[in-house]
């Protein structure tokens, strides 16, 4: 795409993000607490999806352990509240980011040298480590009973009740979401982003244009991990109560699912997938307990017939429309 075309596209994207923020803000008072929660949940999961897809769609690496990173964010917040009595939101999130960064920088050192299949197994193992630690260290994490989360202050503003907190938390989540989306969009369209994609297509050729592949993979991994950690940190106050369920392999699988559903080969795929998945899950859990079957069956159909997910179909439809 040439520069002027791209500049137009860029401005459109910025406008779209602004519009989304505005729409979400405006409809807030019409949503009520239940649907506000759903929206916040969708936005949170959208953040993980973006981070996850940096590795899958853009770098060709499939991670089955992102729930573990999510869990690190969640439990850093939870444990900080429980053991250090921290109740200011921004400090909690900052702590989560620091912990996530430390852990991911060690993990990334190994992960960036692994090819797809080993990477998948590695992240699978990582997710299991975090899950096992959270589940079994009952004395610290309260295991499957879960940790209660109460946050009373955002930027030194106190809230009198959880309901009031959640009301204003909604705007906070939107801001974080928009910032994360903006940063990711710039990242994948940057020189770095293009190099990461090139690595997916042919990492030997990338080496032969003088790029240290491991280093780039490492940074991409770090960013992806931080997104998951931030999402986990954001989720904890939202949920009010965190359990190992969101650190389990099942959740890792759901992250994979929503990304494929929305479309792993498009930027907005994971975001779209996050919302569709949230809605499907909410709806389906009322009519069937075989949610795994539905996930698996639709995923099979997606892989075999619609590998570009929902956004892929949208793309096909819009190009047909344009041809008319």
């Amino acid at each position, binding site marked *: 795409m*040439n*520069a002027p075309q791209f500049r137009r596209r860029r401005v459109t994207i910025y406008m779209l993000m602004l519009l989304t923020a505005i729409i979400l803000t405006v409809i807030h008072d019409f949503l009520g607490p239940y649907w506000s929660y759903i929206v916040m949940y969708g936005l949170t999961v959208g953040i993980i999806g973006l981070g996850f897809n940096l590795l899958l769609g853009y770098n060709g690496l499939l991670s089955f352990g992102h729930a573990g990173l999510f869990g690190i964010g969640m439990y850093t917040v939870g444990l900080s509240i429980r053991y250090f009595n921290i109740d200011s939101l921004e400090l909690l999130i900052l702590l989560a980011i620091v912990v996530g960064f430390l852990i991911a920088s060690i993990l990334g050192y190994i992960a960036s040298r692994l090819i797809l299949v080993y990477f998948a197994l590695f992240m699978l193992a990582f997710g299991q480590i975090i899950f096992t630690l959270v589940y079994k260290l009952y004395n610290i994490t309260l295991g499957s009973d879960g940790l209660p989360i109460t946050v009373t202050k955002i930027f030194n503003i106190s809230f009198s009740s959880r309901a009031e907190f959640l009301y204003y938390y909604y705007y906070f989540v939107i801001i974080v979401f928009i910032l994360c989306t903006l940063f990711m969009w710039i990242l994948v369209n940057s020189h770095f*982003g*293009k190099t990461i994609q090139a690595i997916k297509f*042919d990492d030997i050729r990338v*080496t032969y*244009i003088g790029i240290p592949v491991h280093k780039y993979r490492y940074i991409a991994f770090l960013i992806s991990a931080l997104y998951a950690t931030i999402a986990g940190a954001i989720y904890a106050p939202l949920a009010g109560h965190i359990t190992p369920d969101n650190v389990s392999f099942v959740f890792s699988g759901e992250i994979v699912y929503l990304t494929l559903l929305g479309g792993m080969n498009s930027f907005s795929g994971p975001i779209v997938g996050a919302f569709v998945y949230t809605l499907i899950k909410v709806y389906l859990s009322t009519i069937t307990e075989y949610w795994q079957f539905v996930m698996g069956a639709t995923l099979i159909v997606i892989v075999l017939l619609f590998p570009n997910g929902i956004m892929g179909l949208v793309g096909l439809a819009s190009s047909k429309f344009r041809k008319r």
Partner: protein
Amino acid sequence: MAILEIRNLKKSFGKLVAVNDVSFSMNKEEIISIIGPNGAGKTTLINLISRWIKEDEGVIKFMDKDMKSIGPREAVKMGIARSFQIARMFSGLTVLDNVKLAIASRKGKCMKFLSLFDEDKDITDEAYTILENFNLSKKANFFANELSQGDRKLLDVSIAFSLKPKLLLLDEPTSGVSAAEKTNVMNYIVNMINKNKIGAILIEHDMDVVFNYSSRIIVMNEGRIVADGSPEEIVANVSVKQIMGGK
């Protein structure tokens, strides 16, 4: 000045000695074709010079620097670029982006994650110039995997050129290319080589290409250099005729 000096190079894979006591020097602006039957060790030699593999014995010196502890990436930074027997490229990116990326790497811009790739005018302009020299500029917005076989080879070579190397290693640049396209492909390549005063080593099987475009020919057989000289000398060489099957 010799840009490449190879002395007593040896590489084995298990019991198979792929490169056996190979020695030669190369000056700037030479175009050397390496020919020989399959299994003669030609690609292994290229892999050694481009540092994909490390030698068992012997010395490779590029620009007077011993390459012993140099890996493929550093070799690129030092000025060696290569293309591949089966053309390698970033199939999901456009032709333009393929070349732009090589330029970006050369300029050390690949780490930038806040500057937008598509809006980098300098790199885009340079990329178009290079693509024009290979007659690919009209296909700049094609995806690399949409190209014909000949164009794929050209793209691979143009990526190598974008690195502004001092030594170009081309592994069978015209293999798989249709007869109609072959002359064009070689013309573009040799044109660029001469224009930019680069040294080049080609592995080739097409004898027309070899004799029309090289200043020097090295014949390899079973890992050894059997003959090394100008095209006229090689033509007159009887043992070469035997090895090459009377071509």
